């Protein structure tokens, strides 16, 4: 299937087995990808955690870094996003979607590479997210490996648990790290050395470049708009193929620091911390895998009670389905060009209305 790698990994954690299921064209035609496709898979595999990529994830379409994790929490279907390089790396590992069903008897991590999904038992339980990522990269021999990791927050099934991508917090607004914790999944490690085919490359490139040109003309800033942050920023970072380098890197010690996610920093400042202290605290939050939305004491956040689900807002469902970062919405993405990119890339006749209909089901 064009714009996707071929497989869905259906991981049976109870049995310790993986079934590889081909992605059918019909599935993409009906669900496009990302959050919508995750929803469909969740219906098929209830009580699972679904990791999915959008139809544009990992392509040259600007901002196409997004992956989506979907699970039911307290009876509500919830979506959280992960960016940086994990979305593309997941898709290029050969698995555009992963279904985690059941519960592992003992802690495991999932290792995705070259259409192989390995369930590896691990003694990483109890390690913080930074130690876990560093260990996995060292153990598996490649520092381009991307990880989705849970820390103490996820292990203790805290309501404030936060899924961490390598070392930095994701937009896990629904605490789905705790659901991974319930399943005894400490981490998902991914390395993408695969390829994604394009139905009509020239048309796709044309649409993507049009969107990029439009965005570049509007993006006049870098980093998160937080007072005092720029003064302590060492350098600005972007997620995969994103024209807006919205991430500030703030040094917190010798040869280390923290990549800022705007909402998390603002949450800590709203709890009364100054920007520098907030950045330092955020680093600890990320190490422990907890979301500062619910408080400024990282250790206390590891044992929070259940929190209400945070539904997708505004146009987020559209972005979560395409696999494009919704932060770019403030600059206005040419939706018609996006639909052209999907059509050219997949070879499917998908109109803007069809896409909206599918997204509206979220």
């Amino acid at each position, binding site marked *: 299937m064009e714009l996707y790698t071929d497989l869905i990994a259906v991981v049976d954690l109870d049995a310790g087995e993986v079934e590889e299921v081909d992605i059918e064209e019909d599935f993409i035609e009906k669900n496009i990808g990302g959050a919508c496709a995750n929803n469909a898979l969740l219906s098929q595999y209830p009580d699972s955690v679904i990791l999915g990529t959008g139809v544009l994830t990992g392509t040259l379409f600007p901002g196409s870094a997004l992956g989506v994790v979907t699970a039911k929490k307290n009876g509500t279907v919830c979506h959280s996003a992960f960016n940086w390089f994990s979305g593309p790396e997941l898709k290029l590992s050969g698995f555009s979607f992963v279904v985690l069903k059941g519960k592992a008897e003992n802690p495991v991590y999932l290792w995705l590479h070259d259409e192989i999904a390995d369930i590896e038992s691990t003694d990483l339980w109890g390690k913080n997210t930074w130690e876990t990522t560093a260990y996995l990269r060292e153990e598996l021999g490649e520092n381009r490996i991307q990880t989705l990791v849970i820390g103490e927050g996820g292990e203790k099934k805290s309501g404030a648990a936060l899924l961490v991508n390598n070392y930095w917090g994701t937009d896990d607004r629904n605490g789905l790290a705790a659901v991974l914790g319930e399943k005894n999944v400490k981490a998902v490690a991914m390395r993408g050395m695969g*390829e994604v085919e394009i139905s009509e490359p020239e048309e796709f490139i044309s649409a993507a470049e049009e969107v990029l040109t439009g965005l570049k003309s509007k993006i006049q800033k870098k980093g998160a708009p937080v007072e005092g942050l720029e003064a302590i920023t060492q350098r600005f970072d972007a997620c995969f193929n994103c024209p807006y*380098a919205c991430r500030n890197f703030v040094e917190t010690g010798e040869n280390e620091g923290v990549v800022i996610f705007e909402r998390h920093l603002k949450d800590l400042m709203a709890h009364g911390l100054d920007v520098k202290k907030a950045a330092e605290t955020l680093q600890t939050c990320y190490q422990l895998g907890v979301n500062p939305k619910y408080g400024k004491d990282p250790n206390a956040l590891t044992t929070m009670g259940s929190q209400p689900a945070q539904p997708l807002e505004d146009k987020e469902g559209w972005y979560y389905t395409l696999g494009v970062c919704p932060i770019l919405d403030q600059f206005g993405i040419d939706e018609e060009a996006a639909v052209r990119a999907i059509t050219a890339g997949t070879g499917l006749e998908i109109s803007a209305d069809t896409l909206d209909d599918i997204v509206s089901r979220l």
Partner: protein
Amino acid sequence: MVDSRSFLTLSAITTYPKEDGKPLYYVIGLSCQVITMIEIDPQICTACGACEVACSLYREEEVFTTMRSSIILHREERKNYYGVMLKREGEVLLGRPEGVEVMKEGESSDTGGGGKPILLREPCDNCTDAMCVRFCPTGCLKEV
């Protein structure tokens, strides 16, 4: 005036035998081609990696991958040290926070950044209207 990066190419040389059997040489075409080269300004790179996918697409034409590019993103994530390496004929151009350095093939960089086996990749063929430049969102890569 042709600059130092230019070279002359004889686009065709054809031999026509003379009556005495000795060849006569005619230069059929003479063209002057300016080679485009990619330059890196590492200070404005944001490590988005679009260049890897763009160059790979140029080389493979119908797929998105990071594995075919002449350019590789290098990142030491916890200290946010990053830059790009561009493989040229016989050398690697390193664009790092410290600046730009040319590393001859087989040499080691004393400060890291030359680690990956980029030498397996095809060297940059100095294409014009390069995909890596077109899709670099910051202007970190330029054709000169």
